[in-house]
């Protein structure tokens, strides 16, 4: 699904990712953990195609294609979805208008007919139920005046409508109470399938109780310094990142 090799990224000349390797197979859920500032959001943004990140070496293949040469809208249409760590408020653009535009763009891209208004409404209503959001959220401006939790849920709602092949969730669990966390986890689990993959960027083991990952990676100093199964997340929860950092130093020496 996604194969990242020796990815090096700088921002304003500052090296953030320093040779990152990651291989996510179809149907797999990978968790990426790591201290603040270790480059998790940078990785997520580079996958989504945001400006301002310079890839100085390495490659990212998505479904066997060179992801980095694709325009961000085409990445989305091919099935890459980023749930933002900080979803932006867009006054004047209704949630439903964005979803309709985005979904139909993807359908055109795949050579499928656009959904008519009725089918579209049916689809979004069904997905709203999945994340337990009220219908009024459809007609409100994207994220405008939403609480922190509502914004995160809206990200999952959009993901559910767009049905991506690869979803990258950047700290979608941060700031959520336990009920909201369960809803978000439910949304992600509903999407899980043989041909869909998920990358969960998170600080906490808590989310992984609800979305059980196949692999857990620790990102530090701009690279994956340790990988393991879900037990690794538990160890991190107990012991913090200190022990990882030192062993990473030894590994790169």
């Amino acid at each position, binding site marked *: 699904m996604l194969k990242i090799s020796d990815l090096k990224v700088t921002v304003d000349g500052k090296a953030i990712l320093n040779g990152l390797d990651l291989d996510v197979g179809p149907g797999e859920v990978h968790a990426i953990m790591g201290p603040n500032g270790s480059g998790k959001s940078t990785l997520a943004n580079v996958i*989504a*195609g*945001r*400006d301002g990140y310079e890839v100085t070496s390495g490659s990212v293949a998505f479904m066997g294609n060179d992801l980095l040469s694709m*325009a*961000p*809208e085409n990445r*989305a*249409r091919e099935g890459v*979805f*980023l749930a*933002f760590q900080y*979803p*932006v408020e*867009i*006054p*004047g*653009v209704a949630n439903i*208008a*964005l*979803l309709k*535009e*985005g*979904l139909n*763009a*993807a359908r055109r*891209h795949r050579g499928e007919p656009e959904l008519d208004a009725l089918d579209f409404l049916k689809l979004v209503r069904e997905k709203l139920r999945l994340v337990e959001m009220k219908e009024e959220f459809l007609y409100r*401006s*994207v994220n405008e005046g939403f609480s922190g939790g509502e914004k995160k849920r809206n990200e999952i709602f*959009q993901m559910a409508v*767009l049905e991506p092949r690869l979803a990258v969730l950047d700290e979608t669990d941060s700031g959520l109470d336990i009920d909201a966390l369960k809803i978000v986890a439910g949304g992600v689990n509903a999407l899980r399938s043989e041909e869909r993959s998920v990358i969960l960027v998170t600080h906490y083991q808590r989310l992984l109780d609800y979305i059980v990952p196949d692999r857990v990676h620790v990102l530090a100093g701009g690279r994956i310094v340790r990988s393991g199964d879900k037990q690794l997340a538990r160890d991190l929860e107990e012991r913090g990142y200190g022990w990882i950092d030192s062993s990473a130093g030894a590994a790169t020496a």
Partner: protein
Amino acid sequence: MSAMEGHAAPYVEAQQGQAGELPAAGIAALDRSRAKALEALGERGLPSQRDEDWKYTSIKPITRSRFSPAAPGTDCPEDFVAAAAIENLDAWQLVFADGFYLPPRSKTNGLPEGVRVAGLADALTQNPQPIADRLGSAMGEIPHGFAAMNSAFVGDGALVEIAPGVQLEKPIELLFVSGCSGEGFLSLPRNLVILGEGSQASVIERHLSFSQERSLSNSLTEIILEKAAALDFCCVQDQAERTFHVGGLFARLAQSAKLKATTVTVGRAWVRNDARVNLDAERALVSLDGAYLAFGRSHVDNHTHISHNAPECTSRECYKGVLGDRGHAVFHGRIVVQPGAQQTDSEQSNQNLLLSANAEIDTKPQLEIYADDVKCAHGATVGQLDEAALFYLVSRGVDRETARRMLTQAFAAEVLEGVEPPALQTYLASRVSGQLSSAAAQVSAP
């Protein structure tokens, strides 16, 4: 003869040549006011950039060649009027060709009792005195040469008079089509809208170009709102590139009267608007808004002036502009709180979105406060599209151009959302989006 007077001279002469044939000529009050306006036009001439209020607007494109005042009798073809109709808008409609009322193209049947809607020239011919008494009263002092020109020629236009207590359930649309007479004509419509005590109405003033030919539309609307009257007014300026439009909106509000006036400038014309609102008595309320697009080489200048002349009045002003290509826009908003106008509540904002490095905005909000117990806020912003918002839309699969258009439209939407009825709002939104897409199609994305 100075250059200024020189520019005015052909219009002074033209007026002198036809003064005797203007509607209700010979009625002393009208003769006097026309002569006074003519004198002002001759003495002050047409405005130049030396005038502080015209600093950023050159009238050279207008004075490059002279325009001849259009004569009555020109038609605007039925199919043009039909094609221009606003979808789903149920309204009474008065149609004007180069400023002259066209009864056969208009729809005024079924107007309720207490509502008078007529061509101004007809009304002047029938019973001039009451109209002569009110003409010019909302404007007060003549602000510039174009208003003087309009007043010197005052003849046809629309008269809308609503009797006290009458609530109009449908809007009245005044449709002005300029350029019907051909190349190089000048139209000078003068409109008078009077709402009696406690009455309520909605008026749409829409300006279109008949063709791509050069025309000058010098239009002036006076609005008089008696006690507790409420008017919803929307001026739509949607003209072609070679149309020059000078628009005047002069309103006086009595106690507890309410005016909501929105001016929407789309199209490609050269436009100068002067809006002046006098809040003359307690608790009057005005909401003066505008949305303007300046693309191609178009020029849009909005000068507004709200005067709080009495205590406890409220004014809300929000003008938003989107500029691209080599578009040039000017906003100058004056709010004056006169001595004694205590408990004034006033907010003003002008926000501009610059989509091209070659576009230009000159904005100047101006507060003058001569009372101490007031609440006033104003501000102006000039910015670009928010990159984070753009990326958010693009990351959902929306192409960059569409994303830009969605955000641009969202920016203008704040002003359009207040427009009633919904059919008009839908129409304006589609005109704005149509123009944004055609502008986008003409420039390659950066």
